[in-house]
């Protein structure tokens, strides 16, 4: 099913989630394979005042290297970057990673909107944006930006998400290319492999 959209190449995937996100992303990551060249950026809302432990956890689930995003670091292919607690993660020309401590967006820092909007600017139609489970509306504007830039968009089907608020808000804001339960997003990843 992904074939059409992915005849064009995808250079990067942005993923946003909040509550329930650790489980959802843990289910997605094992579908990535060593040969993938795509760069993956993840914003998961986490408590601000302690290390999230996500890097260790996700490294364990994934054959590609998983790293905490560092300010101004050049983006590498085949790498998964996680936004650190209490900083926004953005993409800048290069492409390079950029962190900022601007105000929280939707009470969240890192915010999904910041990542998605800046990634849409940099990667345009070579970007895939995915909104998963979550309890607030962060990510809706970001996904709309990905779509406007010509990128591919997926929203987790709200009634299959642990928390439906975030995917429902994204659906209200734009019509994504796909609305899928998590198992099918995993399949989508597997289908994508050839495309990359």
């Amino acid at each position, binding site marked *: 099913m992904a074939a059409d959209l992915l005849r064009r190449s995808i250079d990067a995937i942005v993923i946003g989630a909040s509550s329930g996100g650790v489980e959802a992303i843990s289910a997605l990551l094992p579908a990535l394979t060593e040969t993938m060249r795509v760069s993956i950026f993840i914003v998961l809302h986490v408590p601000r005042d302690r290390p999230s432990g996500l890097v260790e956890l996700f490294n364990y689930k994934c054959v590609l290297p998983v790293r905490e995003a*560092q*300010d*101004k670091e050049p983006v590498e292919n085949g790498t998964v970057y996680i936004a*650190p607690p*209490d*900083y*926004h993660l*953005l*993409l*800048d*020309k290069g492409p390079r990673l*950029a*962190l*900022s*401590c*601007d*105000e929280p967006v939707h009470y969240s820092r890192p915010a999904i909107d*910041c990542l998605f*909007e*800046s990634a849409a*600017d940099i990667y*345009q139609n070579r970007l895939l944006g995915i909104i998963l489970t979550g309890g607030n509306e962060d990510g809706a504007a970001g996904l709309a930006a990905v779509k406007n*830039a010509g990128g591919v968009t997926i929203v987790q089907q709200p009634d299959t998400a642990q928390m439906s608020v975030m995917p429902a808000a994204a659906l209200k804001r734009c019509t994504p290319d796909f609305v899928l339960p998590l198992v099918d997003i995993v399949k989508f990843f597997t289908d994508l492999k050839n495309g990359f």
Partner: protein
Amino acid sequence: MNSADFEMEIELLIDAIYRKYHYDFREYAMASLKRRLRTAMLRFDCSTLSQLQDRVLHEPATFPMLLDFLTVQVSEMFRDPGYFRALREQVIPLLRTYPSLKIWVAGCSTGEEAFSLAILLREENLLERTQIYATDINVRALEMAETGIYDVDRIAGFTDNHRLSGSKTSLSDYYTAAYGKVVFDRTLKEHIVFSDHSLATDSVFSEVQLVSCRNVLIYFNRELQDRALGLFEGALCRKGFLGLGAKESVRFSAHADDFIEVARENKIFQKRGSI
């Protein structure tokens, strides 16, 4: 809107600001600037950045307001308590050996970091011999800093941070609350001078034993970071200390060799003695 066009308009706006107002944003990191300028367009009700540029050039009241979008006024007292704890444990014992102290808080925003240091120094019985220079380019932020007044609803967070910083006293010893605000003790303020200074265009103004510059370099590109770090290197005495934000480092800069790491996690560096 086309993102290449938007970037071109940003460059034009920033050039116009530089030429008319001498504020230099030409070497700031683009991604977050872009986002803040998009927000500014909404706030000023302009559908293009060129429209906003027109107002910046022709309506004198606009630029000071825009400055609040070009700079990020987000701060907290004792933000990242581990940093202040590391200062207490690893830097204060050495600062104690100087008969008088000068400290530079660069990019002080509305004063939270400078007041935090003043409180820490008072707890360590060092404030009486200390002069803190706190600088920023946002004049409205400096004016607020000068008052030492903060909203009372921020105090709970400040108090938690202060406690986690290894404090010896209670934060409430240093302020009085009234009408939804708290006012910090005037005797702290007596040791702080707030002034307008840009890391992008101004030069060193004093020799200091400690520079604290947190969450400012993150907004600069590498060239401007090098410039700022050069100023700190120039201002610091031999073996003086430099504290940066949690996601900042001297490591990848042109000045990497001028400093040694004293607290890696907490981003405290020391200027080398001599080569």
